[in-house]
């Protein structure tokens, strides 16, 4: 089984570029040139130096002793939460901003859900002195208000997406429409392994630094460069793609992807794409998505704005269909509990998204001699409101 896309961007049955002709020139140009540009020595040099000195990489691989005791196994946390701006998203925005610069683009657009990708984009556009417009669902702007303020302070314009469910899906639609309207000067900086080819592959490559570092860190800490299990949450799937990337072909590593079940699979308020979705097209990619029998895309729900997306990237659809990945879900409540637990056991407040990955620890069989890496994709500052609101319930239990 091959887990890299073919030249047309297909991972098995999934991927490709199902886009209006108006986007074709831009997307085709990227397709033809992205590998050559990001593979070049000067690009790699600049990319790596910014990852190190600006983002603060490598991020630690932390052995979580008390969490390990609780689950009777060896849990390592890949500390993407310690990146500049608080999540893995910066790995990708640094990569894409360098690409946009080399293409001579002056205006950057992005979509954001939790606001983490928006903040990471506004950060690199400030760094490079480029204009930045971020589309964000109106509902998300309300529930992630601190991130809206951060983006604005960084000089970005945040435009509310007012269509549909007013969340990440609609923000992505608006960004794509903006790109259609500004094909010459604008670069669309996508925040996850979604969208038309070559975006899923490009974003996965920029995020692959996560598993590249993991290999070396595991070698040092465990004497083996691979773990038994890697657990990551999946919204679009970029932190998971980065954490899985260098282990895709190593069958000894179990790849566990955790989706947001929201209020539960049968509640009608969920974002668990593989469990409730089917094959179709979303945002230019053939993949799994949540839709009705007419092909109308349904509105997802999760307490976590970053996981509130009705699709997954084509790589993940392929991992799911081929059986290479193990897909499971965590509800709002399970994620909240996992977040409180990590806070009290390890002194780390995780992002609500990452808390879904942590919740999987309580839902899978684990043994004493196993090494499990949980990709802690982000920190919880942005989610404090939700945490504070629900804390008393947790403490009652």
């Amino acid at each position: 089984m091959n887990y890299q896309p073919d030249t047309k961007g297909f991972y098995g049955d999934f991927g490709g570029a199902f886009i209006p002709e108006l986007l074709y020139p831009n997307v085709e140009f990227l397709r033809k040139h992205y590998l050559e540009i990001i593979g070049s020595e000067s690009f790699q040099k600049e990319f790596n130096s910014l990852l190190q000195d600006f983002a603060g990489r490598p991020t630690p691989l932390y052995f979580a002793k008390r969490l390990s005791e609780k689950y009777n196994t060896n849990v390592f946390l890949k500390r993407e939460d310690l990146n500049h701006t608080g999540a893995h998203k910066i790995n990708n925005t640094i990569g894409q901003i360098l690409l946009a610069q080399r293409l001579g683009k002056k205006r950057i657009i992005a979509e954001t859900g939790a606001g983490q990708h928006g903040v990471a984009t506004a950060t690199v556009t400030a760094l490079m002195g480029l204009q930045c417009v971020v589309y964000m669902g109106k509902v998300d702007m309300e529930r992630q208000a601190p991130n809206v303020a951060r983006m604005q302070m960084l000089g970005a314009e945040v435009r509310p997406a007012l269509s549909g469910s007013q969340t990440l899906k609609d923000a992505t639609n608006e960004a794509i429409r903006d790109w259609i309207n500004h094909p010459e000067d604008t670069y669309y900086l996508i925040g996850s392994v979604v969208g038309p080819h070559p975006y899923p592959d490009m974003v996965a490559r920029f995020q692959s630094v996560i598993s590249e570092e993991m290999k070396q860190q595991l070698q040092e800490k465990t004497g083996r460069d691979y773990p038994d299990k890697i657990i990551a949450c999946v919204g679009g799937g970029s932190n998971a793609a980065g954490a899985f990337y260098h282990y895709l072909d190593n069958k000894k590593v179990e790849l566990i992807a955790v989706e947001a079940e929201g209020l539960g699979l049968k509640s009608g308020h969920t974002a668990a794409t593989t469990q409730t979705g089917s094959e179709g097209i979303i945002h230019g990619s053939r993949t799994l998505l949540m839709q009705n029998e007419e092909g109308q895309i349904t509105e997802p729900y999760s307490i976590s704005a970053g996981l509130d997306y009705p699709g997954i990237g084509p790589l993940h659809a392929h991992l799911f269909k081929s059986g290479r990945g193990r897909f499971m879900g965590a509800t709002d409540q399970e994620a909240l509990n996992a977040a409180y637990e990590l806070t009290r056991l390890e002194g780390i407040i995780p992002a609500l998204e990452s808390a879904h990955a942590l919740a999987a620890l309580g839902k899978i069989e684990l043994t004493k001699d196993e090494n499990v890496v949980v990709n802690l994709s982000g920190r919880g500052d942005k989610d404090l409101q939700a945490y504070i609101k629900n804390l008393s319930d947790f403490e009652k239990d």
Partner: protein
Amino acid sequence: MNRIENLFQNKKNILNIYLTAGYPKLNDTVEIVKELENAGVDMVEIGMPFSDPLADGPVIQHSSTVALKNCMTLNLIFSQIQEIRKSSDIPIIMMGYFNQLMQYGEEAFFEKAAHCGVDGLIIPDLPVEIYSETYNDKVKKLGLDMIFLISPQTENERIRLLDEASSGFLYVVSSASTTGKISNMEQEKSYFERIQKMKLKNPLLIGFGISDKKSYDTACNYASGAIIGSAFIRALEKNGSIKQSVHEFIKTIRP
């Protein structure tokens, strides 16, 4: 010869009007098409409302949202088209997004469309390469036209490819935009001239941002006619009967 070819052979300055099926009311589609025909419109493009219409601006997005709230479905659109066909030979194009076809079943969709008297299809997010490889034979066998779009950014070589894959006509998008943005037709003259000089296989219709008599007339100078969408949808939002709204609007385009 199908209805579309027949039209282009016999008429100039073709006026093609886009409407969203099921908007403003679920069962308005048939009446709107009939009134358009009575008002002298040459061809209609019936939009299949979609939850995430990437190529569309706010006006068509809104009409799609309303139509979906009205519970529009593909099968209902097909039966409305059958109803229209009982008394009309106006060329009919269906416009929608590929995911809708995938869930219906692509083959089943093409067969049903042909059976109901649809003449052509516009699927803006179906890549021409995948169409040619996978669907062209079936679509042609059923006598349907597949119409592709070109924009000011499309390179000549690709224009030829899209022209080759199209039949009926080629859809010339007036400017780099989603639907409904008023385009500056004067600015695009060199683009229209470039396309005109290419001597393409298909006749041309210019669309996106055509909103009034002036932009319609300009389009007719460079192509076989024009397609009007958002401006017409907006006209339907006005008070008054459908009959009145349709006739008043068409009179502003062709006094």
